């Protein structure tokens, strides 16, 4: 079902491209999506028109020539803006509706701009944003004030309709050379230079990389074909060093004390922080600890700005909690209705797997150890039979991805988790809720609700921020579950609410060459997560995902979790989605 939806989204994009190209005999080199995962109609048409008017084979060669560059995504965005102008001019007489579609794309740009959060704005590549702003403002007939350089770039990007393939390529490489001093195939980016450049950008608070629209490469020049759904790394946010004491203090100030002792943590880290995660650290805390932190600044933090950061973070987390609760209150009816429906659905699902608690009886299975009571004490109740009381013997762990990519959906995620947790509790299934994120090299798992607690209010502590090093978090959770039930008396279900886009500022550790490690993102990080999920399953923890991300990441979720996931975009879908997911997981591997 979900696969079909994904196929649908990508298929829809492909259909726009094929339709505009008037051919169906090629696999599009790019697909265009909005950050929400919706298909970007206009830009997909532009891609199709580029296929129609230019030799795409030659263009692909050109795009691949810089695909290894760390700014490849930025170049893509800018050059496609140029190509957009050219194919528009070529096609407009043949397809007059293009003028309307272009305007509508422009107004989409401004509409999305208004709904972007500050954090999202910060993630925006300034240069791409400026140039998109110029282009779409012109289309809308708005005036924009530009600096000399901005103006030169925007003029350079107005590729005319008269270009043929060769002159287009000439124009594009000229553009890269003039404004980026980048000659595809010749320029080598030195790490130290980029580091310096990164530092400068960081200093001015500029972020490069992510941009408002995701122009997704389907395969890249580097030879990997599965890079298509990743968010690019922001060069200015690279975190190449192993976390130090300062970072630990920072994490402690925000999340509170680790619930494990130092020794325990050392053992955990020596077990889990190996291979690709060798430089990472772990932190396990509870939501209550965080609450206490809100009033209590950590004096150990020396730097004033860090102190300010911590205060700001704590304030935001507290206000997010209020927002989560307000959302619940505002949508009380819908949430209660969903709880009711999911409870009923789960009741049906679990009843098939429920176990009756044994009770003493005069007949049934003889308990050998008690048999003496019959002759000695004349106690006939030495048998066991299935009693009326039912025990599910299933415990559920809800693991919430709390990385920054979830910023726009925090209230929704909290509410959905609340619905799932309440429904499980009503079915007498113990449930714990954990959230995970990675910040400053620490993968933090926060327990929002414990197994023993009967209310699910803790989930409203959920707040997003930081990165997500999924594989490491999954392994840590595996340890936690194993520790909770070392004898395996329960069946454990792990439901991960995720956007399936693992992404960390700290690269994958490569022994002996840490600083040249590959970025923790895209296909590599997905493969890591996939391995971690396999390990969870090998341990008997039935792992599945509730996918709440952009359609563009559906491929990842499929790779990581196989078919055991469900895609949810609103609370109303929860009851059907989650119950059938749990049913599927139980059916595939019923409790012992």
């Amino acid at each position, binding site marked *: 079902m979900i696969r079909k939806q994904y196929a*649908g989204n990508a*298929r*829809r994009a492909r*259909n*726009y491209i*094929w*339709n*505009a190209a*008037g051919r*169906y005999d090629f696999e599009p080199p790019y697909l265009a999506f909005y950050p929400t995962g919706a298909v970007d*109609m206009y830009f997909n*048409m532009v891609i199709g028109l580029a296929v129609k008017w230019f030799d795409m084979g030659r263009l692909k060669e050109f795009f691949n020539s810089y695909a290894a560059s760390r700014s490849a995504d930025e170049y893509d965005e800018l050059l496609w803006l140029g190509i957009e102008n050219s194919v528009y001019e070529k096609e407009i007489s043949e*397809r*007059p*509706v293009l003028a*309307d*579609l272009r305007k509508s794309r422009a107004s989409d740009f401004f509409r999305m701009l208004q709904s972007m959060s500050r954090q999202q704005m910060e993630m925006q590549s300034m240069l791409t944003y400026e140039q998109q702003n110029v282009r779409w403002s012109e289309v809308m007939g708005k005036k924009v004030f530009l600096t000399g350089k901005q103006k030169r770039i925007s003029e350079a990007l107005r590729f005319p309709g008269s270009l043929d393939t060769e002159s287009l390529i000439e124009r594009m490489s000229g553009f890269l050379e003039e404004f980026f001093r980048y000659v595809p195939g010749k320029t080598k980016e030195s790490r130290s230079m980029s580091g310096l450049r990164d530092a400068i950008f960081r200093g001015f608070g500029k972020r490069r990389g992510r941009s408002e629209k995701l122009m997704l490469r389907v395969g890249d020049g580097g030879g990997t074909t599965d890079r298509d759904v990743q968010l690019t790394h922001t060069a200015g946010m690279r975190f190449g060093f192993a976390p130090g004491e300062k970072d630990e203090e920072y994490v402690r100030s925000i999340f509170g004390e680790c619930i494990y002792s130092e020794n325990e943590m050392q053992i955990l880290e020596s077990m889990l922080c190996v291979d690709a995660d060798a430089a990472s650290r772990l932190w396990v805390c509870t939501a209550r600890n965080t609450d206490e932190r809100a009033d209590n600044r950590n004096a150990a933090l020396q730097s004033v700005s860090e102190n300010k950061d911590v205060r700001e973070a704590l304030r935001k987390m507290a206000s997010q909690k209020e927002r989560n609760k307000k959302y619940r209150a505002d949508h009380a009816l819908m949430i209660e209705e969903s709880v009711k429906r999911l409870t009923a659905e789960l009741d049906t699902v679990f009843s098939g797997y429920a176990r009756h608690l044994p009770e003493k009886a005069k007949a049934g299975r003889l308990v050998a150890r008690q048999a003496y009571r019959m002759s000695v004490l004349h106690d006939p109740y030495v048998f066991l039979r299935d009693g009326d009381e039912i025990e599910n013997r299933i415990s559920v762990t809800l693991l919430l991805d709390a990385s920054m990519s979830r910023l726009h959906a925090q209230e929704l995620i909290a509410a959905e988790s609340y619905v799932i947790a309440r429904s499980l509790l009503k079915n007498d299934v113990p449930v714990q809720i954990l959230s995970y994120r990675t910040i400053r090299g620490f993968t933090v798992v926060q327990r929002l609700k414990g197994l023993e607690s009967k209310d699910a209010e803790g989930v409203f502590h959920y707040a997003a921020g930081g990165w997500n090093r999924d594989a490491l978090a999954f392994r840590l959770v595996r340890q936690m579950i194993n520790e909770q039930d070392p004898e395996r008396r329960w069946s454990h279900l792990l439901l991960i609410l995720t956007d399936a886009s693992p992404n960390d500022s700290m690269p994958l550790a490569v022994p002996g060459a840490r600083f040249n490690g590959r970025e923790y993102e895209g296909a590599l990080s997905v493969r890591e997560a996939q391995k971690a999920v396999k390990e969870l399953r090998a341990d008997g923890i039935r792992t599945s995902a509730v996918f709440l991300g952009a359609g563009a990441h559906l491929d990842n979720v499929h790779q990581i979790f196989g078919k055991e996931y469900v895609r949810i975009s609103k609370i109303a879908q929860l009851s059907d989605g989650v119950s059938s997911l749990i049913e599927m997981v139980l059916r595939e591997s019923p409790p012992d």
Partner: protein
Amino acid sequence: MKDTLAFLREEGVSADLIAGVEAFRNTYSMKEKYRDRIPVPSYRYYGKDVWERALAALLSGRNLLLSGPKATGKNVLCENLAAAFAMPVWNVSFHINMDATYLIGTDTFDGEKVTFRPGPIYLCAKEGGFGVLDEINMAKNESLAVLHSALDFRRAIDVPGYDLIRVKPETRFIGTMNYGYAGTRELNEALSSRFAVLSMPEIGSADLERLIMNSFPTMNTKICGQFVKLFEELLLKTQKAEISDRALDLRGLLDAFSLIEQGLTAGQALEMCIVNKTFDAYERTLITDVVRSRIPAEMGRGEVFGN
């Protein structure tokens, strides 16, 4: 609309064939009571080659089987042929439960006695005219066996308990079929060998444009061109199996123009007459995408019909 023969002359159809049709018209006259059965085509069929083949087959006494995908104008050609030969038409829409009694006739009670109520094939054979066997491959082959003797050299139908009906010399049967359509079956050899089979090509853009402009003479020619391209895009998408052929509906496209004439926007009209022809929600999205990338949804009567 001008006389069909005049239209054929304009199309450049062979003068010999047209003369043959005229001779046919003069030779065979039909009863006055069946005059209403001679169709007045709403649309012309464009395509000289198809016209010539069809006329030749019918003039030589053959029955004709028009085979082709949706929107190739099979029924339009049937109507046009009957109009050209000035012959009354008996239409039989085939379906899975079709049987011999429906085609030939059945006993009925007229208040006093049991009588034979003739079916369309019986009437067509007896009175003379064109029997249009629409979607002939929808019916089971067994129920079509009754037609064999009418269609081959015997040209007779033996109605059990009644007479042997001789098929009149001016009678022709024209079957239509869309091979591979949902619900269709393989036509057996015994039946297909009794027809001259004409494989219907898809309508070309120039012909489609003429068809639209003839039906809606006030339409803006540029806009008409966009609609033609839209149809081509849908056709290509169907051929590439990205969508089913439900939305590839020429009648629907022409209906949409009528709705636009009535004041609906192009978006609304195309939604009703093209997009909603398919009931799969996802497929509708794909079709809407094609429509949106060619025709502005808000375009109204003024733009479509104003030059």
